[in-house]
């Protein structure tokens, strides 16, 4: 079986939680205070993540999916559990749709999206066949590289002189209202609630005991990272442009100009995004495949890889006709949909309580 180390889990979950926010921006609705909104969501997000972690801790040896039939019984638990692979593959399709909308419109105009997506899916399929262990190593290898590139970009942006920290002031300009609006539920669901898919990875981590701490660490680090980039984007553009840009972070990279020589690095921003999306899609598809394997009691999970990849591909290709609709759905419909909220928040809480009570009764 695939085993990953604690370090690899950390790398995977940091990249995963930062994920696509690197390009779409996060909590842009909060304007100047978006960084604050991110930090608040992070704090709330850690509780969400710790709920997931404690569920798997209360049911040792079982993947998250298997907890449902065990705790809720076969008749209630199994259908609930079956909702998860569907949810995962849907979100995976959303990320593929991100690629579908972003790459052709920025760096490859004129290239048909299906061709771009096929390349993307082929690499993901290869990764799925190689398994979680290889992907863990990839994350581990890429994290410092991404970190270095990011640090260089930050230095370049600062030395371009486009940052004006005064743009962040005044804090809480329009009060707490708009912060709460982005924190609940979007801020919690995006990134942190989505860590649900990581729950299927945790059983592969060795040594076992370190999962909760690792997850909390990664959540906090990802939160700080996103808050930092948000703050940077606001201080570069000011609130108004930040709120209006389709891809604020992309614009941020575009703002780099050092000695008029290193300029227009936007393509690298897209590449950044592609890699993040790659890992995120991989985790979702892996979670899908793993849950299917657990739910159907199959030995070899590989037989599910190709069908799952093809479904995600078709979903990504057909899900959103244009960027606006895609982003609108992601920001306005998905977080409020009862399926999302209940699968990511309410049912896990119930599950945790049930597991906890049962365990207490048993002992």
């Amino acid at each position: 079986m695939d085993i990953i180390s604690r370090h690899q889990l950390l790398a995977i979950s940091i990249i995963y939680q930062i994920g696509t926010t690197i390009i779409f921006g996060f909590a842009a609705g909060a304007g100047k205070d978006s960084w604050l909104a991110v930090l608040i969501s992070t704090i709330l997000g850690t509780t969400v993540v710790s709920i997931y972690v404690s569920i798997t801790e209360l049911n040792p040896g079982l993947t998250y999916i298997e907890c449902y039939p065990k705790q809720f019984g076969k008749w209630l638990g199994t259908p609930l559990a079956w909702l998860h692979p569907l949810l995962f593959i849907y979100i995976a399709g959303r990320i593929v749709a991100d690629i579908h909308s972003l790459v052709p419109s920025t760096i490859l105009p004129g290239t048909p999206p299906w061709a771009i997506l096929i390349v993307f899916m082929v690499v993901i399929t290869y990764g799925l066949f190689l398994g979680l262990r290889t992907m863990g190593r990839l994350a581990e290898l890429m994290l410092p590289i991404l970190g270095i590139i990011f640090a260089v970009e930050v230095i370049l942006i600062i030395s371009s002189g486009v940052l004006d920290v005064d743009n962040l002031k005044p804090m809480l300009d329009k009060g707490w209202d708009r912060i709460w609006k982005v924190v609940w539920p979007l801020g919690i669901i995006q990134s942190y609630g989505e860590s649900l898919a990581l729950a299927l990875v945790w059983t592969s981590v060795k040594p076992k005991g370190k999962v909760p701490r690792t997850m909390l660490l990664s959540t906090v680090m990802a939160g700080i990272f996103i808050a930092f980039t948000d703050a940077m984007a606001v201080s570069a553009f000011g609130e108004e442009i930040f709120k209006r840009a389709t891809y604020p972070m992309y614009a941020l990279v575009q703002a780099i100009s050092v000695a008029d020589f290193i300029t227009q690095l936007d393509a690298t921003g897209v590449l950044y995004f592609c890699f993040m999306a790659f890992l995120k899609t991989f985790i979702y598809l892996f979670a899908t495949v793993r849950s299917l394997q657990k739910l159907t009691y199959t030995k070899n999970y590989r037989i599910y890889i190709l069908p799952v990849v093809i479904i995600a591909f078709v979903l990504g290709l057909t899900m959103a006709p244009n960027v606006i609709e895609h982003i609108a759905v992601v920001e306005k419909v998905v977080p409020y949909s009862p399926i999302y909220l209940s699968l990511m928040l309410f049912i896990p809480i119930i599950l945790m309580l049930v597991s906890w009570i049962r365990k207490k009764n048993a002992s």
Partner: protein
Amino acid sequence: MRKPLILLLALIISLFLTGCWSRVELNDVAIVTATALDRAENNKLQVSLQILKVKMTKGISEKGGGGENATLIVSEKGETIMEAYQVIQKKIPRMVIFSHNRVIVVGDQLARAGLSPVLDFFSRHREARGNSYLLVTKGEGKEILKAPPNFEIFTAEEIREEEKARYLDSVTFRDFVFRLLEKGIEPICTQLQIVPLSGQKNDASDKKETGLAVVGAGIFHHDKLIGWMKRQDSEVLLWLKNRMKRSSMTVSMQNKDGSTGKVSVQLSKAKTSIRPRIQGEKIQFDITMHMTGELFENTTKLSIKEIQNLNKIQQVLEQEVKKRVTSTVNKLKKQFKSDAVGFGTILHRKYKKEWNETYSKRWDQEFPKIEVTTDVQFKINGTGRVNDSTLWEEEQLEK
């Protein structure tokens, strides 16, 4: 395991072989180096592009292409920029790319009518870059593009270098949009004109050498140009925004014997902080400036070896800076009624509640009523290679 892998590889390879959809070879692009936007009759836009003729630049280091211009000016009228751009594209055998367009020049007629309609294209277009410099000119922008370059191979590069040196406030497209959208600050633009390199404009010499120069700033109210600011005043804007790179200042001083001399300093640092205060109905801004400079010319009889003389010069300089700041702010308040410095944003940062509740909506009316006090501290930190003036005998100098 092996078989699907081989299949995947085959798939990838076949895919790569079909490709090259969006490929554009460098031989097939026409690089736009500058854009000029003007107002044409019937509310139409005139878009002029300065396009590089790459073959003319062959061997930049070698002797240039026989005095021929390396750029081509193509212009076309249209309802929108896109429309005009499409017509231009049809005139040119190569694909026009905007990604190296670093200069946008706007003619004053269009600027007075409002820039908003043209800004949208540049913020939306994939290739347009936010760090393009936005400039306004009296007259037609197209004429600016036609001016022959003196040093670089095309004028856009010269304009860019001049803007970069920031003798006057350089405004990128992104800055402009930022100021336009942000409440409490109004956009400005650098003013670019063709000027003769030597002598008067109506000099009779047969071959007039001209150059492009930034001569001042265009002051905007919202997206409309409302007036021009001279060089000296626009320099003050730089000081107030803490964006000065290098500048110089000359003051005249009376000697004891009644004759006047001049003192020129090069400013090396200007640090300004503006503190707002709300006192009842009155809004007051306290400007504190710390400037340092180096003495470059001294034609007075003052001996700079003496501390009190140096202090005297510093005092005169402080007075001069104060005068200039007050005059510039007054012009903004009275003449333009446009908050080009961004007093509003400064107020917003300090008094967010008052700003959000009252001032943000009627800042246009409030701004002319603000009061400004200026406090300047000037420090001379160098006197060049000599300390005392070499013009005068030792005994003539005032000690």
